[in-house]
C-alpha cells in the first residue's frame, strides 16, 4: 500500500500523463462527470460516477474498421483502424471495473475482436473505491464490493490522502515510475471501508433477489405476462443502452466519402425498432419484444452462456437516466414477484 497527500495529486497526474494519455473523471459544463484527457488545471470530479461509462475507452461509440477504394470492378482494402495508444484510465469505480470482465467475455472470446483487444492491452485501469454510494446503487447484488474495486491499481481517497495499491504486473510497472508515492499502512483504508459498508447495509436496493434468473427458467421468464406492463411506456430511445457499462451491441455501417468507402462500427441498441428488421421479416415487431430481449439477455441469456455471470453491474445509471424511470431493478423486482 502506498499513499500520497491530496495536495500532490496534480504531481501524480502529471507523472501518469507523461508519454501517454491519462483519463480522469472531470466535471463538464453541465456539472456532470465524464472521462476527460488530463491537462494541467483539470480537477478530479467529486461526483460518484460518470454519466458515460468507462466502456467508452475500450469500445468507443464509433470506430473505423476498414476502408475500401472502389475503382470500376476492383476493390482495394485500406487499413484505417485507430492506432493503438497506451493510456491510463483513472478513477474507475468498482461497477465499471467489473463491466470490463463482462465485455472481455464477449469481445475476447474466439475469434477475438482485435480492435477491443488492442485497447485493453494498452490501457492501465486505476480504480477508485466509493465512500458515498447513491440510493440507485446495487452493485453488491452482483457480488461487487465497492470498497475493494478490482483493477491494475486500486485506490482509496479520504479528506487528506490518496491510497494506492498495485494489483497486477501492469499496475506494478505503472507504480514503479511514481516516486512521489510513499509507503503506507492499511489502517486508514480499512477504517474507511468499514464506514462505507455500514452505508451499503442501508441501500434500498441491496436485497434485490436474483434467484430464478437462470437458464433453467428461460422459457418461464420469457413467457411472463408481466412484460406487457413493464414495456408499455418504454420510448425505445436507447438511453439505457448508451449509458450502460455492459451493453455491447453494435452495428456495422458504411460511409461513402466519394473517394473511399469507410466501414465503421457504432453502438446500436436492441431497443431500436430496426435492430432485427430484415427484408424477410421482423422477429421483434413491437417494443414489448425488444424490451424483453434486453433484460432477458442481461439476466438470463448472458449468465447461461457465461457460468452464471450476470450482464449487469448494478451501477444505477439506467435508474438515473431513463426518461420514464423504467430500469433493470424494477424488472428484477416485478418478475421476481412471481417466484415466491
Amino acid at each position, binding site marked *: 500500500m502506498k499513499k500520497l497527500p491530496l495536495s500532490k495529486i496534480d504531481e501524480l497526474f502529471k507523472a501518469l500523463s507523461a508519454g501517454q494519455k491519462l483519463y480522469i473523471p472531470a466535471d463538464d*459544463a453541465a456539472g456532470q462527470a465524464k472521462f476527460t484527457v488530463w491537462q494541467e488545471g483539470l480537477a478530479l470530479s467529486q461526483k460518484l460516477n460518470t454519466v458515460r461509462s468507462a466502456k467508452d475507452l475500450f469500445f468507443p461509440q464509433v470506430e473505423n474498421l476498414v476502408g475500401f477504394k472502389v475503382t470500376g470492378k476492383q476493390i482495394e482494402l485500406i487499413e484505417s483502424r485507430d492506432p493503438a495508444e497506451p493510456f491510463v484510465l483513472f478513477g474507475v469505480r468498482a461497477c465499471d471495473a467489473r463491466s470490463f470482465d463482462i465485455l472481455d467475455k464477449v469481445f475476447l472470446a474466439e475469434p477475438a475482436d482485435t480492435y477491443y483487444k488492442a485497447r485493453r492491452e494498452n490501457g492501465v485501469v486505476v480504480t477508485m473505491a466509493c465512500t458515498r454510494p447513491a440510493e440507485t446503487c446495487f452493485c453488491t447484488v452482483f457480488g461487487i464490493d465497492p470498497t475493494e474495486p478490482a483493477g491494475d491499481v486500486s485506490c482509496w481517497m479520504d479528506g487528506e490522502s490518496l491510497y494506492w495499491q498495485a494489483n497486477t504486473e501492469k499496475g506494478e510497472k505503472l507504480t514503479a515510475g511514481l516516486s512521489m508515492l510513499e509507503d503506507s499502512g492499511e489502517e486508514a483504508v480499512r477504517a474507511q471501508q468499514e464506514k462505507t459498508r455500514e452505508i451499503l447495509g442501508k441501500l434500498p436496493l441491496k436485497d434485490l433477489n436474483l434467484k430464478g434468473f437462470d437458464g433453467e427458467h428461460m422459457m418461464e421468464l420469457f413467457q411472463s405476462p408481466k412484460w406487457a406492463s413493464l414495456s408499455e411506456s418504454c420510448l425505445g430511445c*436507447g438511453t439505457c443502452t448508451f449509458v450502460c457499462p455492459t451493453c455491447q451491441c453494435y452495428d456495422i455501417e458504411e460511409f461513402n466519402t466519394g473517394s473511399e468507402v469507410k466501414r*465503421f462500427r457504432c453502438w446500436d441498441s436492441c431497443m431500436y425498432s430496426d435492430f432485427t428488421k430484415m427484408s424477410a421479416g421482423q422477429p421483434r415487431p413491437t417494443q414489448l419484444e425488444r424490451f424483453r430481449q434486453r433484460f432477458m439477455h442481461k439476466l438470463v441469456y448472458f449468465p447461461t452462456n457465461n457460468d452464471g455471470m450476470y450482464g449487469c453491474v448494478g451501477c444505477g445509471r439506467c435508474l438515473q437516466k431513463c426518461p420514464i424511470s423504467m430500469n433493470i431493478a424494477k424488472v428484477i423486482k416485478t418478475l421476481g414477484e412471481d417466484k415466491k
Partner: protein
Amino acid sequence: MQQGLKEKAIQLLKDKTVDRVVGWKAGEFFYDLTPAVFHTPEEIEKDFVFSVFSGANLSKYLIAESRKGGKVAAFLKPCDTYSFQQLLKEHRILRENVYVVGVQCDGTCDIEKIKAAGCDGVTAVREEGDGLVAETLYGEHRMSKKDALLDRCAVCKSHKLVVYDELLGEQGEEQDAGRFAEVEKLERMTPEERYSFWRGELSRCIRCNACRNVCPACSCEKCIFDNPDSGARNKAAADSFEENMFHIIRAFHVASRCTDCGECSRVCPQHIPLHLLNRKFIKDIDELYGEYQAGADMDTKPPLMDFTKGDADPSVVYERGGDKA
C-alpha cells in the same frame, strides 16, 4: 391532490366511462415515476401516484392508446393539454376514444436539481408546505419547492387547461413568466459566442434519441433519421458538426408544432438545454408571423403550414443581419 385524482380514476373505471386510465406509477424512491396504464381500481389504489414528480407528459402515449379500442382516461396538466390539442389538430389522436381529466399544476420538480443542491442518496421526498423534505442515506435535507422546479416550470407559460372533458381543480390563466429571457441572452451574443455556446452544449450529445422519442411533435411513423434512403440517417455522424445538425434539423421539423412542453430538456441525460432551440424558433415565429401558440386551440393553422399575403419575405433575413459573416 393525489387522493382526488385516484378517486376520480377509480370512479371513471367503476362507472365504465372508460376501461383504462393513463397515469403515473409509483417507483422505488418516490421521484422515479413511470407512465403506465391502469386497468382496475386495485391497480390504481396500489400504484397510482400524482406528485411533484409527475412531470412526464402523457399526451404522446395517447397516439397509440387511442387506437387500441375502448376508451382511455388521461390526466393532463396544463402543458400536457397543449400537446394533446396539437396532436388532435394533426389527427394523430382519436378524440372520441380519450376522456381527458384536466389537472391543475403549480410546477413539477427535478430530482437532478435536488441532488445538485447536495442531496446524495435520496430515498424519499415529501412536500411540506412550500418546501420539500428529502430523506437521504446521509441525513435529511430541506429546500424550497421553488428552487427544485424543473427549468420549464420556473417559466411556466400557462396554467390554462385548453382541452378537457372534466376539470379537477380550477381553470387557470396564461401568464408571461419571461420564458424568452434565456433566448434573448443568446440573441445578444455575437455569432462567434453563440456558435461556441451551441458547439459546447451539443458536444455532450450521445445520440440516445431520448429527446426525439419523448417529443409529442415527433410522431412520424418513420423518422428521417431512421430512414436509410433519406440521406440524413446517422447512427454515427462523420464528424461532430454533422452530429449537431441532428438537433437543428429536428428543431426545424417541429417548428410551429412544438408547444414548448419542455420534455426534451427534461429527459436529456446530458442536460443539454434543447428547449432553447425550440424557443428561439417560437420567438421568431411570433415576430415574423404574429403571436402563435401551438395547441392553444383547434382552429388556427400553424403559420408554417399556412400562407397569407402578409407573410415575411425572404429579405427579412437581411434585415435581421443574417448576411453578415
